[in-house]
């Protein structure tokens, strides 16, 4: 598990070597492209948004972009992104694509789903 993750991190680092410099200049370049699909201003949607913001700020500060799609406003996006459950957080980047469903209150699962290695362990590794 750890070996796998480390390998992935290495590849990501190698791939992003040149673009990262460019990204930092444009301020649009990120490692993580996340889209949260919610349905209106429901409690669950609100909780999910708060949860992902907290996790991302802690572990991915500056390296992610998060957009929120309200399916009530843009129902056609549900088909486009193959959304069934709400809320769904789609991790478009880095590969592979993942869908995290639920209000994201289970932090461990969110971390696994987003391939985030906790900072403490990161420091040790």
């Amino acid at each position, binding site marked *: 598990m750890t070996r796998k993750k480390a390998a992935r991190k290495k590849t990501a680092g190698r791939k992003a070597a040149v673009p990262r410099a460019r990204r930092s200049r444009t301020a649009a370049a990120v490692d993580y492209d996340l889209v949260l699909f919610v349905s209106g201003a429901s409690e*669950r949607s609100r909780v999910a948004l708060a949860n992902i913001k907290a996790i991302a700020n802690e572990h991915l500060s500056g390296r992610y972009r998060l957009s929120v799609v309200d399916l009530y406003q843009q129902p056609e996006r549900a088909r486009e992104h193959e959304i069934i459950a709400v809320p769904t957080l789609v991790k478009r980047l880095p590969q592979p694509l993942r869908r995290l469903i*639920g*209000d*994201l209150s289970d932090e461990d*699962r969110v971390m*696994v789903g987003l391939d985030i290695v906790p900072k403490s362990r990161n420091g040790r590794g």
Partner: protein
Amino acid sequence: MTKQPRRLVAEALAKCPTGIRGLDQITDGGLPRNRSTLVCGGPGAGKTLMGIEFLARGARDFREPGVFVSFEERPDDLAKNAFSLGFDLGRLTRGKRLVVEHIALDRTQLVEAGEYDLEGLFIRLGAAIDSVGAKRVVLDTIETLFGALTNQGILRAELNRLFSWLKDKGVTTLITAERGHGVLTRHGQEEYVSDCVMVLDQRVIDQIATRRLRIVKYRGSTHGTNEYPFLIDRSGFQVMPITAITLDYVSPRQFVSSGVAKLDEMLGGKGFYRASTILASGTAGTGKTSLAAHFVDAACRRGERCLYFAFEESPAQIVRNMRSIGIDLERWVKRGLLTFHAIRPTSVGMETHVSLKLKYVEEARPRIVVLDPISSYAAAGTLQDAHAMLVRLIDLFKARGITTMFTSLTSGEENTEQAGAGVSSLIDAWILLRNLEQAGERTRSLYVLKARGMRHSNQIREFLLTDRGADLQDVYVGPDGVLVGSARAAQEMRDRVAAAASRRDVEQKNRHLERKQKAFKARIAELEAAYAAEVLDIEQAIAQEKVRQESGLAGRTALASNRQRIARGRPTRAVGSKA
């Protein structure tokens, strides 16, 4: 509020016709409108195809657009499958009468992290329904959700919400589900769908597969409870409403000729009743097929369409063989009046046989159907199955006013009256063909074992197959018993000789009588002449006597007066003396 009860009643009766042949009959009008129906069955049972046909027919025939939510098959695969049933999904989609919504659930992409609902599914389904104004929805199959999502509590709550939402949307829903071991569905989907549950089944018995459909429940509606065989073929799904529950066929009083004039005579002069079931049974080579061919030929001459199911011979062979007895069946085939279907009984299951036959009957709409011979069914499956199938066929044909002729091969040793796979009690008219062995030869014979509702001959007739067709001969019943064949011919010859001899005898006697008559007449004339002469003589004698008598009287009178005068003369003298 006061209107509510009436609305409920109306809803309870509303049906959504599927358009699937046979299904609407056994469901008494279709699926429950604005409600959900569960179709469950094993892999390959035809669940998806049923869903496709429900939508395609709805869109095409009932102007009710539909949404097909596919959790498994991709739209292009679905379109291919539908095309094999004769439905062009692409055209329906382009015509805004159908939406195929493919919901891909990739287990490997999903991570459950907290509470959720299935609002995304609702939104997509809602958008699809609204985009075409759908009235019908098929979910194929929601089971995939159970496989992809682990939180069963959420899933079940959401499915409950989904079905009540669909009801509110005013759509008729059909959901499919895989059948579980010993239970209807693996995940208990039937608990969400309480209105109508159907089970599709494909069973293999003796290496022969048969598809069957059963309605497990249908709330608030009458429905057939049997297992109904169904077919999936190029024109789609077809369910066979096998047995009518009641025996209320109309019984026409018209007759149909058997095609053999003398057989008609034996049956009271007009032939068989229309829409009756006729069995011609007999051992090998007794002329069963020939009799059937006559029946068909006569029907075609009347311009009636006929359907001939051949189970042992090819149509070409039957046509050729019947030509040898002067029946040209080919011209009827060419004119479209006669259709042959040659099927091996072992090729498909009994149920499928019924289904196929019904399908052909629906296509050809014949007045006459021949099954030649039904005994091969008994060889193909169990006798019980064959019997059940024939009962259904008889029902189906009767209900359609079709006159049916079965032929049945009986083996020599077998009791002839047990022929026909035990259907004898269902047969209206039974013609028995037998080979009589006598004087070193076999002779075909025929008799009417029974003919319900008509006065029929109880005599055995000799059944002759000539090159001008079949004919019946009275058999010779004499002091030596029943004579047939050349024995009959010989006896008839002897009879003719004897008859000729006695005829001559009679003639001779007549001539003798004539002579006698003449002689007597002559004598009578002679006697009459003598009599006349005598009469004349006597009359003359009488006349003479009369004359004599008259003259004698006159003489006596004169004499008497003379004597008086004489006597008076004396006193005259005395008087004179006195004076």
